[in-house]
């Protein structure tokens, strides 16, 4: 007996078809994974099972049976009886998906208050604690009194799952449930979902990340432009993908490549025993000090890439800011071309700033939203005194180097796709003819196939111009694709450092091994469950 059964689901919004004839069913204790890139219609498909399609959308289906209810013509009030009680929703980041102003316990209790109004206060409280125990939240009675921002990302996500399960739904819709999490935490949440599935929950899993999907799903549906282009059992789909788009996704997810070895060049960027301490303000006790970065040293050669890996909060970004001379180290020095860099006063550093440039993770916020691409690039071009009339040609040439058409020049940042924006960010950095490019999570916000293209572009630029890259990411697969040397950080300390092959193939530090094992990466997931 299927928990969900959907036939010919179509969703149109303002004349545009978002979901175009999708059919699937999920049985109790099974998981269907829908994989696809952003804009493919995954989320709208999932939300249709809760009657939460975007306002104004028209949803039609020849069959839409959700936990025994024919949901084709439900009124809003009838849908409310389905939501929470029959279908639960877990979405991306619990920091924003739980009400930030309410205690975790109150959030978990809410579905009980809505659907099981017969329960007394004490019973609700007990049910809530049992739910938090079920999702393995340590010290449930203490944590229940915390606010979402006081919990770590993994614990928060567990609490969100507990709240979705509170009114015992038969189906759980998990929309990118691990996307905001670090690799090791991601593996724990996947394991939790796996347990729930074994206990008989039907699971609809949505992700852009094939590696997450294959760790959980019994069947995979590949979605593109509102349609399922391929649906197959997980093993079959991975072993013998039929549709070209599936093959493209698989290839991108593997990212199983390493950079070509580069000739030894001069040292362009060096760090010597860099350290940085932050003080948390405490008005009457002098505050507490936190070592953000401790004793980092390296040499970066021209044409080489240094990959910096670690989880969020490990000091990667602080290190990047010190390399760029945005933040002053408390100890140690940064040398650029063997000359002092971090020790210079800003007025002397400014003239040489063009030699080291930054690529942000989030290029939307790295651009002035009112600027066109031409203005964005012109601003960087103008720094070296290029006359106004020559700027447009330079800008067009820069776009060409990052494989973008000149036609994008009059567009604004929000009119570009994520991949195009990141290319413009690279073009802007190239305008200053840098010798070093510091890339802080440059592809984390991008879909996998786009990730691969941007990584290829960076690799090409490096080979052509001998650019040195500092490449920061929490994602080992991405770092592996470009790096010649790797530096693994944990809590501000370098726990392992060396050639990429050595670090990745024969990791010495337990943390590096945990990172390698945790990423539901090509080498670990799929055949073995990440537990």
């Amino acid at each position: 007996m299927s928990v969900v059964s959907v036939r010919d689901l179509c969703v149109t919004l303002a004349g545009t078809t978002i979901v175009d004839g999708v059919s699937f069913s999920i049985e109790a204790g099974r998981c269907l994974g829908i994989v696809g890139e952003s804009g493919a219609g995954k989320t709208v498909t999932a939300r249709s099972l809760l009657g939460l399609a975007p306002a104004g959308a028209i949803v039609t289906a020849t069959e839409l049976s959700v936990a025994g209810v024919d949901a084709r013509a439900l009124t809003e009030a009838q849908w409310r009886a389905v939501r929470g009680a029959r279908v639960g929703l877990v979405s991306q980041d619990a920091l924003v998906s739980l009400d930030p102003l309410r205690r975790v316990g109150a959030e978990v209790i809410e579905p009980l208050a809505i659907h099981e109004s017969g329960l007394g206060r004490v019973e609700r409280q007990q049910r809530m604690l049992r739910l938090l125990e079920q999702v393995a939240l340590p010290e449930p009675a203490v944590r229940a009194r915390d606010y979402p921002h006081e919990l770590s990302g993994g614990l928060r996500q567990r609490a969100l799952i507990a709240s979705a399960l509170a009114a015992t739904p038969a189906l759980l819709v998990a929309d990118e449930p691990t996307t905001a999490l670090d690799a090791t935490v991601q593996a724990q949440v996947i394991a939790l979902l796996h347990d729930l599935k074994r206990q008989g929950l039907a699971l609809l899993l949505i992700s852009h990340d094939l590696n997450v999907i294959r760790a959980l799903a019994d069947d995979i549906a590949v979605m593109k432009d509102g349609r399922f282009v391929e649906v197959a059992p997980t093993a079959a789909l991975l072993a013998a993908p039929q549709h070209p788009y599936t093959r493209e996704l698989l290839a991108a997810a593997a990212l199983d490549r390493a950079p070509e070895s580069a000739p030894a060049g001069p040292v362009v960027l060096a760090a010597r025993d860099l350290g940085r301490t932050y003080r948390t303000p405490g008005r009457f006790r002098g505050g507490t000090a936190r070592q953000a970065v401790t004793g980092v040293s390296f040499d970066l050669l021209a044409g080489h890439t240094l990959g910096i890996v670690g989880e969020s909060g490990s000091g990667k970004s602080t290190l990047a800011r010190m390399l760029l001379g945005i933040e002053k180290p408390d100890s140690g020095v940064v040398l650029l071309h063997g000359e002092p860099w971090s020790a210079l006063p800003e007025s002397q550093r400014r003239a040489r700033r063009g030699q080291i440039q930054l690529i942000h993770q989030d290029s939307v916020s790295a651009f002035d939203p009112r600027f066109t691409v031409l203005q964005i690039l012109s601003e960087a071009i103008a720094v070296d005194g290029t006359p106004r009339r020559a700027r447009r040609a330079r800008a067009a040439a820069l776009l060409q180097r990052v494989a973008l058409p000149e036609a994008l020049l009059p567009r604004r940042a929000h009119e570009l796709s994520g991949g195009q924006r990141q290319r413009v960010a690279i073009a802007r950095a190239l305008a200053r003819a840098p010798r070093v490019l510091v890339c802080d999570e440059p592809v984390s916000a991008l879909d996998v196939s786009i990730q691969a293209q941007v990584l290829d572009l960076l690799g090409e630029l490096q080979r052509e111009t001998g650019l040195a890259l500092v490449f920061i990411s929490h994602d080992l697969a991405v770092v592996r694709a470009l790096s010649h040397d790797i530096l693994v950080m944990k809590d501000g300390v370098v726990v392992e450092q060396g050639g990429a092959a050595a670090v990745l193939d024969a990791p010495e530090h337990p943390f590096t091994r945990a990172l390698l094992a945790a990423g539901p990466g090509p080498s670990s997931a799929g055949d073995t469950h990440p537990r």
Partner: protein
Amino acid sequence: MTGGAVTGGAVGQNRPVSRLVGRLGGMVLVVWGAATVGFFALRLIPGDPVTVLVGLGSVSEQVREQIRADWGLADPLAVQYLFYLGRLVRGDLGTSYRMQQPVADLIGQQLAPTLQLMGLAMVFAVLLALAAALFGRGRRSTPFVGLLELVAVSAPTFWIGLVLITVFGFGLGWFPVVASGGFGALVLPAITLAIPTAGILGQVLRQGLDAAAILPFVDTVRARGASHTRLVLRHTLRHAAANSVTLTGYIAGSLLGGSVLVETVFARPGLGRVALNAITDRDIPVVLGIIVLAAVLFSVINLIVDLVADRLDPRMATAEAYS
């Protein structure tokens, strides 16, 4: 993020206390600053300080001698200043030589009616604003409520007062027109004072509700089967309130100024009248007293606002650690 949360928990035990101590210290600073500025502004007025302190009208040489003694005018300025601060600390606001009464008494007698007026006006303003925000977000009601708010904000207080008197006082006879001391006499003035405030507050609350309605957690709440009413009352209203509470504090303080007009229009006793008379008569000791009182009032309101804001948004209490 995770690291910050851990250290936050370790220090968190005495943070509320130290924050409160810090804020009380801030309050003292504000009041001290206001008193100091008032004192030195007084000395910037050209002419004999004695004449300045007397204000309009003349007094006997004996009183002038008394003034010199009260303010220690024979001493150097720094000593006078310390002497003045010392008096303030003891709660002595000086004497109005015009009214021949201690300033503290003069203000004390009129404080209660004004605080009643401000308090009730604040209650009305919040209720009106809530009603406007909660019922003014439908497709048809939004433009209507928006227009009402605009009128409320832009209509002059004295005009609102006159209209209310004409309609509800003379026309319908529901409320007394002049002060009679009862609660009924308080209603029209309080509404007059509340209406412009409610207009601003209603707009801010409504925008806050709209902004909260598109936050990601709203999807989660709806996915639990919550009704629209529950979503607003249990979730988004709190977000909207957390954003408006600072403004509410500012407005509550500014009601002191607004009470001048309202008290005049309704011929009510109160601090507003006292202040107005003191200014027109150049009764400087009373003006100084009111400045200090206003500073105290603003600080107390701000303290309350800060405490309420912390309770509404628990992230505020730990925000300092991240900044």
